[in-house]
């Protein structure tokens, strides 16, 4: 196994084991995403006939809000435990750190999506083909995690940590929001969703931000 992959796997295993023992991030993400779905039901009065148009947006916003909680914890927990310095002096490239944190958050997000999607189907009675929708949600999560981990590290270096992450992240992920909602609209048969290469857009976004994140990450975590 190449050293890069081995280093990433070691860091990923560490984060996942930590999460399995504390369940700090995932439990908050799952409960919050569920809560957002229920809140939307009251806020938008989600009747079944509305769901083919509004549904994808509701589900994706629940995912993004849930994911924001996990992303906010990514470096906060390292900082609280004093392990961030340890990671920084470890003889690994910064891009290894970025990819490892990206994969950790991606795993959290996919688990959250695997729970939220059935809940969404169950609560709102939307007929959904699970495979294409899960594929779209995965593509969305990849971009979300790449941008989120980068900005989580940026926000963690400022005075107002919790405030900065969403303010930095939300405008940048607008293309994912549009792509996921439109692609999912097509997948569940929403007539007003436009047939555009949304999946290609998502793949392009994911690729660009994974590469950009891996390159610029060393400048974010310098000291």
């Amino acid at each position, binding site marked *: 196994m190449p050293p890069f992959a081995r280093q990433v796997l070691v860091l990923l295993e560490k984060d996942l084991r930590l999460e399995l023992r504390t369940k700090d991030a995932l439990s908050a993400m799952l409960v919050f995403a569920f809560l957002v779905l229920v809140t939307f039901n009251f806020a938008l009065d989600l009747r079944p006939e509305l769901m083919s148009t509004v549904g994808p947006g509701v589900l994706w916003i629940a995912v993004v809000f849930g994911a924001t909680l996990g992303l906010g914890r990514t470096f906060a927990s390292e900082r609280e435990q004093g392990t961030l310095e340890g990671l920084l002096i470890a003889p690994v490239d910064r891009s290894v750190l970025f990819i490892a944190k990206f994969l950790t958050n991606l795993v959290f997000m996919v688990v959250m999506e695997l729970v939220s999607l059935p809940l969404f189907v169950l609560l709102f009675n939307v007929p959904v083909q699970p495979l294409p929708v899960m594929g779209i949600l995965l593509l969305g999560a990849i971009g979300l995690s790449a*941008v989120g981990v*980068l900005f989580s590290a*940026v926000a963690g*270096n*400022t*005075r*107002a940590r919790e*405030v*900065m992450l969403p*303010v*930095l992240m*939300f*405008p*940048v992920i*607008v*293309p994912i929001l*549009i*792509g996921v909602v*439109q692609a999912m609209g097509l997948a569940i048969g929403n007539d*007003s*969703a*436009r047939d*555009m290469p*949304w999946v290609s*857009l998502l793949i*392009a*976004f994911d690729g*660009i*931000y994974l590469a*950009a*994140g891996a390159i*610029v990450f060393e*400048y*974010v975590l*310098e*000291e």
Partner: protein
Amino acid sequence: MATIRQEMALPAAAAGRGSALTTILTAATVLLTVVSLGMIVFYAPMERVQGVVQRIYYFHVPMAWVAYLAFLVVLVASVMYLWKRDMKWDRVARASVEVGVVFTTMVLITGMLWGKPIWNTYWTWDARLTSTLVLWFIYVAYIMLRSYTPDVERGARLGAVLGIVGFIDVPIIHFSVTWWRTLHPAAVVAPTLERTTPNAPPQTVITLLVCLLTMTLVYATFMVYRTGLERLRDQNRELEQLAGR
């Protein structure tokens, strides 16, 4: 003490005063602004359908151009800062973000003033309006980021990262929003600027070109003064640290 006195002597020059080039630039900008205003009011012909409202166009389009130019300058300055680690580049980025946000705000406001009589609404989720607004948010976040990061060197680094990562998003946002906008074609019935420009009378085109030049000079002048002010701030900070020691 000698070094302190030397540093103290710098600010007057740093502010841009005394530099002949700055004086010429400022004078040219003021002169051209007057000329542009005169041309917009007296020289440019009255648009037959839109009437006098169309003259907003001579402010709106040049300001949109300057806004994009400003954010492009932020990108270049950010890359240069991370490469050279010279605070000079960070001052350019800092100044250009602020000027860019001001111009983007003005673009949105002048667009709304034009949209009310022509589209009968201040705002519509048209592709161009939407992507300009998203851009505005990204660079407002940049200003917030800098104000939340007291350490200058760290702020410069984080700012440079956002200056790069944010600008990469511009074409992606443009594509996504354009494709998304095709959902509701009925909402946008008014002609876009492109469609009116090619068959416009020469006076319109000449006025627009002069206004473009003027607005670019306004940007350059703002940048000279703004970077000069930032340089004074940086020097002031260094002096305070020196005095504190």
